[in-house]
Structures are given as structure tokens and as C-alpha cells.
């Protein structure tokens, strides 16, 4: 018996919601980056589910590209975190609101 597609897409929606909540409420910038990774993973899961539904490989190709973008984003994001910690001695986003009006 097959796994119903709506179950997989529901799992993807729940994980995306958890990621959004994490990015909203947490103040540690490293955990915010992890929550963004969780959201990207939820999108990947939806791509894989829809690729299975249509029986084509196109979704898998997009997943590969999203994984690459996630890796690049983490490398640059953590570089920013390190230089931020060097200059301001904090990873709390509430302490780094210089560009906020």
C-alpha cells in the first residue's frame, strides 16, 4: 500500500510551521539559522512528495539545488555570526538592532 501524498505534505507543513515559530520566538541567532534550515527541509519534503505524485524526477533536481543553497547560506550565515561575536560579544538578536528603526 502506498503512503498517501497528503500525509507527507501535511508533515512538510507542520515542520515548516515549527521552523517559522522557531525563527520568530528564539533570540539566539544560531538557533534562528537552524530554524531556517528546518524550513528549507520542509520545502524539500514537499518537492519529494510531489515528485512521487507526478512520477517525474524534476522535484529531485530542485531538492539538490535547494540543498546547495542551504549549504551556502549556512556557510555565509555562520561567518557573519562569528564576526558579529568578535565585534559585539553576543549572539542575541535583540542586542544587534542597529539597522532597525
Amino acid at each position, binding site marked *: *500500500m*502506498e*503512503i*498517501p*501524498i*497528503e*500525509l*507527507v505534505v*501535511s*508533515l512538510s*507543513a*507542520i*515542520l515548516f*510551521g*515549527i521552523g*517559522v*515559530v*522557531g525563527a*520568530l*520566538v*528564539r*533570540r*539566539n541567532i*544560531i*538557533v534562528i539559522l*537552524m530554524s531556517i*534550515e*528546518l524550513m528549507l*527541509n520542509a520545502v*524539500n*519534503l514537499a518537492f*519529494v*512528495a510531489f*515528485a*512521487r*505524485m507526478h*512520477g*517525474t*524526477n*524534476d522535484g*529531485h*533536481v530542485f*531538492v539538490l*539545488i535547494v*540543498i546547495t543553497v*542551504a*549549504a*551556502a*547560506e*549556512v*556557510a*555565509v550565515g*555562520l*561567518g557573519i555570526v*562569528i*564576526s558579529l561575536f568578535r565585534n559585539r560579544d*553576543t*549572539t*542575541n538578536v*535583540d542586542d544587534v538592532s542597529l539597522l532597525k528603526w
Partner: protein
Amino acid sequence: MSAELSLFYFFAALAVGSALSMVLNLRNTVASAMSLVITMVSLAAVYVLMEAHLVAVLQIMVYGGAIVVLFVFVVMLLNLRQDDFPPGRQRGAKALGVVLVVFAVIKLLALLPAALPDTVAALPEGFGGYRDVGTALFTRFILPFEATSLLLLSALVGAVVLAKRRLD
């Protein structure tokens, strides 16, 4: 209930539980990173159940292997203290945001079963294997693939510039 469906429920519960523990763990950032690993590996198992074998392998190699290790390295490098995070500002706006997200997800879950077809397409030969995905990647999707290489190069240069102490 078939074996595949029970496996899916098991890994889905594992993924959601560890994702929640990642977000709700307020004290230990390394424990959050470990919860993220459990989420990634459970999702790789779900990918295998959806016949996406190449994506599952890459998920474990890139996410579990590279990205989470990068997170753990940075957490250890920064040596964070527990008292760095006092109760934050704008608590009302954040609570409103959480309520809105929960409402949107519940609404989406209610709409999903009617919006998706019940039947899935027949499984083609070699679906999700390295041969089929690789052929698609190097023929029809060659332009996004090359653009990705440009993105990786700029991310590499950017990370080096950011992490350097002083530019000469």
C-alpha cells in the same frame, strides 16, 4: 496498516518531536543541533519511503554530515554562556505571530486532503536513482546547475572574507 505506512508514521513523529525539541530547548544550543540531526535523518528515511534514494543519501551526507557539524563547530567556538538570553522584547507581537502560524498550518492541513488527488502516478523504472536524476540535472536543468556553481563560489569567497580577522 501496512509496514510502509507505520514506518512513515514513526519517522514523521520522530521528525516533528525532534524539531519541537530543537525550537523549545532554551538552555543548550548543542542539544538543539543534535535534535536537528535527528530531524534530518528521519526526513532522509521519509525520502527513502518516497523512493527518492539519491536525495536521501545526499540529505544525510550534506545536512547530517556537513551543515550540522558546521553548527556544532561554531557553537563550541563561541562558548556561549547561559545568561546571554534574558526575556526578550516584543513578547506580544511574537505571541501573535505564533498564533497566526499555528492557525495557518491548521487551516492548510484542513484544506490539503481535498486539494490533492488520491492516486499517485505509476513508478517509472529507475525513479529517484542517480542515473535518472543526473541525466535530468545535466540536460534539462544545466542552467540552474551552473548558476549553483557560481553561487557556491561567491559563498566560499564571502565566508572566507567574513571569517578573516582583518583584510590586508
